[in-house]
C-alpha cells in the first residue's frame, strides 16, 4: 500500500514554536549573545569567546555566594519539608475548621514578596519590631543588621513563614487523596501511628513531595526580593545570595558580559540540581523494579 506523504501538518505546530521562541528561546539567546561579547559603548561589540565565563567561574565572590545559596536552600528544605508534612498530618479532615485552617495557612502565600520583606524587616527590628523588641526584653540582643547569624535566622525564618504553607497545602491534598480503605486496613493489621505514616502516607505522598521539593528548591535558590529588602545582602556579604550579586552586576554596575555569563551558569546549576533531586526521588521506590 502506498503511503500518502504530506508534511503540511507540521505547519499546525508552528504557533507553538512561535510561542516558545518568544517566551524562552529568544530571551535566552539574547543572554547568550551578551555573554560572549564586550562593548565599549557606541554600539561597538567585540567577540570575546569564553572570556567572561572563565572570569566568572574563577570569581571568589561568586564561589562564596554559591556556598551561601546552597546552605540557604539546604536549610530551607530541611526545615520546610518535614514541618510541612507534620502540619499537614495534624490538620483537621472535616468540619468547619478545614476551610478556616486552609485559608489561614494560605495567607502568607498571597503576600507580595517585597511586602514579606518589609514585614520581617519591621518585625525583627530591635527598636519597634515585635520580635526584635520582645527578644531584647528577654535579654537576648538580637540585631540582624549587625550580626550575620541573626541576619541568617531572620531570613530563614521569613522564608519558612512565607513558604511552608505551600508544602502543607500540597501534602494535605496528597493525604486527602488516600482512600479510607488504606487506613482501615492499617487498623485491621494493627499498625501503629508511625507504621501507618511510614508505610501508607509517606509512599502515597511521594508525588506531591517531589513537586514540593523541586518548587521549594528552585524558589529558594533564586530568592532575591525578601532578603534584599530585609538585609540588602548584609551585614557585610553575609546574606549576599546569587541573585543579589547578579542584580548588582547587571543593573548597578552594568557589567552585561559577566552578568550574562553568570546568568547562564546560574541557570545550568538550577537545572542540574533539579534533575538530581528528581532522579533521586523517583529512584527511591523503583530501584527494585524487576
Amino acid at each position: 500500500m502506498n503511503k500518502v506523504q504530506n508534511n503540511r501538518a507540521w505547519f499546525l505546530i508552528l504557533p507553538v514554536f512561535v510561542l516558545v521562541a518568544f517566551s524562552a528561546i529568544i530571551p535566552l539567546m539574547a543572554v547568550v549573545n551578551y555573554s560572549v561579547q564586550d562593548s565599549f559603548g557606541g554600539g561597538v561589540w567585540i567577540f570575546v569567546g569564553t572570556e567572561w565565563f572563565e572570569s566568572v567561574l574563577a570569581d571568589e565572590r561568586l564561589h562564596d555566594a554559591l556556598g551561601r545559596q546552597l546552605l540557604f536552600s539546604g536549610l530551607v528544605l530541611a526545615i520546610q519539608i518535614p514541618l510541612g508534612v507534620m502540619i499537614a498530618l495534624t490538620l483537621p479532615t472535616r468540619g468547619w475548621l478545614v476551610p478556616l485552617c486552609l485559608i489561614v495557612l494560605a495567607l502568607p502565600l498571597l503576600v507580595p514578596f517585597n511586602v514579606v520583606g518589609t514585614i520581617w524587616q519591621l518585625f525583627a527590628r530591635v527598636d519597634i519590631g515585635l520580635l526584635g523588641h520582645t527578644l531584647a526584653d528577654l535579654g537576648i540582643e538580637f540585631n540582624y543588621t549587625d550580626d550575620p547569624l541573626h541576619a541568617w535566622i531572620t531570613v530563614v525564618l521569613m522564608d519558612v513563614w512565607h513558604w511552608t504553607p505551600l508544602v502543607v497545602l500540597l501534602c494535605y491534598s496528597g493525604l486527602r487523596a488516600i482512600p479510607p480503605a488504606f487506613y482501615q486496613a492499617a487498623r485491621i493489621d494493627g499498625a501503629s501511628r508511625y507504621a501507618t505514616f511510614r508505610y501508607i502516607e509517606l509512599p502515597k505522598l511521594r508525588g506531591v513531595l517531589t513537586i514540593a521539593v523541586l518548587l521549594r528548591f528552585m524558589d529558594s535558590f533564586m530568592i532575591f526580593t525578601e532578603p534584599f529588602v530585609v538585609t540588602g545582602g548584609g551585614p557585610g556579604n553575609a546574606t549576599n545570595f546569587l541573585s543579589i550579586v547578579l542584580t548588582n552586576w547587571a543593573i548597578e554596575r552594568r557589567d552585561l558580559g559577566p552578568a550574562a555569563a553568570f546568568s547562564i551558569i546560574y541557570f545550568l546549576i538550577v537545572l542540574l540540581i533539579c534533575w538530581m533531586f528528581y532522579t533521586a526521588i523517583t529512584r527511591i521506590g523503583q530501584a527494585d523494579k524487576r
Partner: protein
Amino acid sequence: MARIVLDGVAHSYAGKGKAKADDYALRRLDHVWEDGGAYALLGPSGCGKTTLLNVISGLITPSEGRVLFDERDVTRLATEQRNIAQVFQFPVIYDTMTVRQNLGFPLVNRGLPADRIAARVGEVAEMLDLSDALDRRARNLSADAKQKISLGRGLVRDDVAAILFDEPLTVIDPHVKWQLRRKLKEIHERFHRTLVYVTHDQNEALTFADKVVVMLDGQVLQVGTPEELFETPSHTFVGYFIGSPGLNLIDCTLDGGDAVFRGGRIALDDDRLARVRGRNVALKLGIRPRYVEVLDRAGAETLPAQINDVEDLGTHRLVDLALGDGGPVIRAMVAEDAALPADAAFLRFPPERTRLFADDVLVA
C-alpha cells in the same frame, strides 16, 4: 475463633439522637454468626452490608446495640483490639514493601517471633500461589496478585475471631475469581474459620456460603441455606433477587377461595386462605420460572397464555409469556428438548411450588 452475636445493633451515620427512622443505614438487628460458619451477606448496593461488616470489625461503632465475641462485649473496643481480619473491595497493599513483608505485616505489628512469622507467611503464600513472588515489591504486581496479598493478610493470622470479606473479588478477572472463590471455600473447609463474605453477586453468595443472609434497606430479610432461599423466599425481594431470572410475581386479589389476577385465577389451599382472609393486605403470587409448566393444550388448572419470545440459553430455554390477553408477564424455564406450542400456550402453576405473599412477606 468465636461466636459473634449482634444484639439489637442499629447504626445511623447521622449520629446518635439526630437520626430519623429513614436515616438508619442499618436497622435494629439481632443475629448470631456461629463459630466456623461460612456466611454470605447478600444484597443490592447501599443496603447496609458494608456497614454491618464494619460494625463487626469495629471500624464503625454502632449507634445502638451490642456486639459480642463469645459473650465478651466488644462494642466499644477498637478494631485493633478485636482480633478480626477484614479484606476490602479494592486491594490494599503497602507499596514500599515486598510481598513477604506485606503478608507478615499484621504479625510483625503484633510482635510475633520471627520464625513464627516466616512459617505463617510461607504457608499462606503457598495457599495463594504467591510463593514465587514473595521477594518482589508489591506495587509492581497485577491487580489480581495485589488482591491475593490482601486476602493473604487476612488469612495469615491464625487466631482471628472471624475473617470479613467486603466484595473482595470485584476487581478480579472472571477466571481467577472462580479459582479464588474455590480457594476460600477450601480454606474454610480446612481451617473452619468463621467467614463473612459480602457480595451483591448471588452466584458468589450461593456457591461460597453455608448460610446466606439477604439484606435490603438496612434490614435482614432472610437467613438460610441457598436452597431455602431458592425454594421458600420469605420476602418477594428475596425471591426476585435470588435466581436468574428471579421469581415471577403476579398481583392478585381474593375471590372466594381463589386468587384472581388479570388473565386467570387459581385455587388456594384453606390453610393459606385462613391466614390472609379479611386482612387488608396486598397479595402477590410467586413462582420460580423453572417450576412453571408450559403445555400445548388446556387441562385441569391451566391458564391460557401467549408466547412473546423464546431465548435459547444453551442448557435450557427461557420463555417469555403474557397471561391471558395481555396480562402479566411470566417467565418460564423449559428443557432444551421440550416441545413448545407455536403461539398460544397453557400454563400450569403447581400448587406446591406456588407461593403467596401478603405485603411482600411470605404466607407460609
